[in-house]
């Protein structure tokens, strides 16, 4: 055994470099398309292997000010519209999802497991929900209400799961009973003690479900008919109608949005970890 350590077995000599190589290749495989898209959005031509004509902001200008042929609308208005719609979905998810997560984490009632399954399983794909929605409520297709309701239904599981894990990490019953014994009514206990204690999960759930709602394509594509397009449709229009590099700039807007959300989540997560020390 000592010999093996001295001479270095196959695994000891190559194990670590091999794992590092595999990790590096995986990272490259995942990051390359994103980086190339972002970089190419600053190029003016792409005929060969790599884009050329750096650095130009024309593509970004087209996307940001809606001057290109792509979506025929500025990214800002789409982004603002989607922000509002997704926010509406998040508000509904908060009102419905937080009490469901609480009930499932706190109480043992008949049908609890079924409620949990329905709350956390994304039962209907966006496209099916969209068609069903259109056929049931055709009049609502031109309003944002349809999109808000659809987003909230589709993204509710992410909210419930995030909040539920927060609730499960604390002793809900004892916290609730402590507050009540101190004279707080049940609604007051819920709003001033239980919900603020689950803040990390609620913030995380809101960010995740908002991001996914803002990027929801299938449901938006089926239900959206006219007016300012939601962000997902805006991106789709850019990709299908505009020049290749214009589309790259539009997609990069989405990448930046995702990066922003991920960083925010990390910060919130770390803040929670520090507080736990």
């Amino acid at each position: 055994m000592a010999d093996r350590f001295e001479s270095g077995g196959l695994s000891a000599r190559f194990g670590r470099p091999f794992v590092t190589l595999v990790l590096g290749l995986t990272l490259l495989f995942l990051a390359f398309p994103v980086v190339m898209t972002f970089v190419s959005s600053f190029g003016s031509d792409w005929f060969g292997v790599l884009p050329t004509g750096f650095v130009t902001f024309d593509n970004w200008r087209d996307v940001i000010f809606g001057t290109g042929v792509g979506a025929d609308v500025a990214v800002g208005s789409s982004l603002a519209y989607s922000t509002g719609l997704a926010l509406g979905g998040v508000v509904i998810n908060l009102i419905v999802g937080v009490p469901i997560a609480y009930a499932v984490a706190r109480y043992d009632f008949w049908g609890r497991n079924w409620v949990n399954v329905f709350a956390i399983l994304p039962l209907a794909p966006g496209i099916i929900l969209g068609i069903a929605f259109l056929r049931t409520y055709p009049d609502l297709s031109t309003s944002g209400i349809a999109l808000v309701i659809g987003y909230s239904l589709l993204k509710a599981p992410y909210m419930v799961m995030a909040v539920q894990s927060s609730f499960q990490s604390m002793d809900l019953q004892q916290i609730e009973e402590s507050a009540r014994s101190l004279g707080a009514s049940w609604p007051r206990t819920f709003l001033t003690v239980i919900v603020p204690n689950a803040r990390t999960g609620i913030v995380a759930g809101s960010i995740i479900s908002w991001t996914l709602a803002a990027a929801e394509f299938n449901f938006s594509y089926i239900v959206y008919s006219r007016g300012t397009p939601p962000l997902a449709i805006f991106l789709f229009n850019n990709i299908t109608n505009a020049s290749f590099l214009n589309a790259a700039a539009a997609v990069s807007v989405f990448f930046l949005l995702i990066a922003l959300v991920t960083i925010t989540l990390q910060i919130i997560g770390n803040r929670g970890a520090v507080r736990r020390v």
Partner: protein
Amino acid sequence: MSEVSLDNVTKRFDSTVAVDGISIDIDDGEVMGIVGPSGCGKTTALRLVAGFETATEGTIRYDREDVTHVPPENRNVGLVFQSYALFNNMSVLRNVTFGPKMHGVGKDERRRRARELLELLDIEELADRNPKTLSGGQQQRVGLARALAIEPHILLLDEPMTGLDAKLKQTLRQELGELLDELDVTTLYVTHDQEQAMSMCDRIAVMNDGHLEQIGTPAEIYEQPANEFVAGFIGTANLLEATVQDGTVSLGFAEMAAPQNAGPNGTATVMIRPDDIRIGPDSTDAEVVAEVEVTNLFYQGETIQATGRLPDGRTLTLSLDRSLTDVGTGDSIPIGLDPAAVHVIESG
């Protein structure tokens, strides 16, 4: 502070009887312990007093006022849980002022009261800290301060020492005992740890399987247990079959004058505490002297616990003085018993 009484209280969950007709009167300022093994109904009893469970039968009174159906938020009870259940979204000070705020106490008054309690518990410097950052002992004090801030009718402590390390437990037990004495607050202390209950409570109620087995001072419970369960649960007990006949109790290996409560003639169960058995040179003065063979020795620091086999094969748990270092496994040693050491606990 108040008198609190449970009068023939029963709590059923479907077909399970968690608490079966218990009656406990807690005097004003008294520290009452409820002890018993897991599942004996002691926590349900505490929850009934707090109002988180409603009695199926019977009455709960605070100062003779029936509160059986009063919701917990209107009962004014101070509750300290095993996990302390502090509100991590608030500072220590806000945790302590929460109760008074819910009771409509003005901001200045509730802050003054909270500061006073934090000072009393020697944690005033923690006022602005988040409870998450505190040690177990500090959290316990915050939990106590929070519970006391509402000037409760009764303070309910549900296993507040479980989960702390042995040394800290010992320190806190002493501190908590002194504090409860000083505050003169009516307290119900629920624990499975009989040692804690013995050292902190004025009286103890021993529960088993939903029933109240005995209620009395720690000395009464220890020295005159009502039955085999209490004798075995509180401290270490030797339970032996014996025969009572005309004022004499026969243990098989010894005969002696029967105590007054020996009951009618016939078979009986007697209890002998290990520390009442005289061992070594001291044993020869006792009224009855017998020989046992030492079969086991467990060094416990202050004493040595030993198992001694009687000539008839029955065993006794013995408590040896640490100075008896020359006693080894397989040795025969004399033991001495006085009538006062023998308690008849069940006869017939």
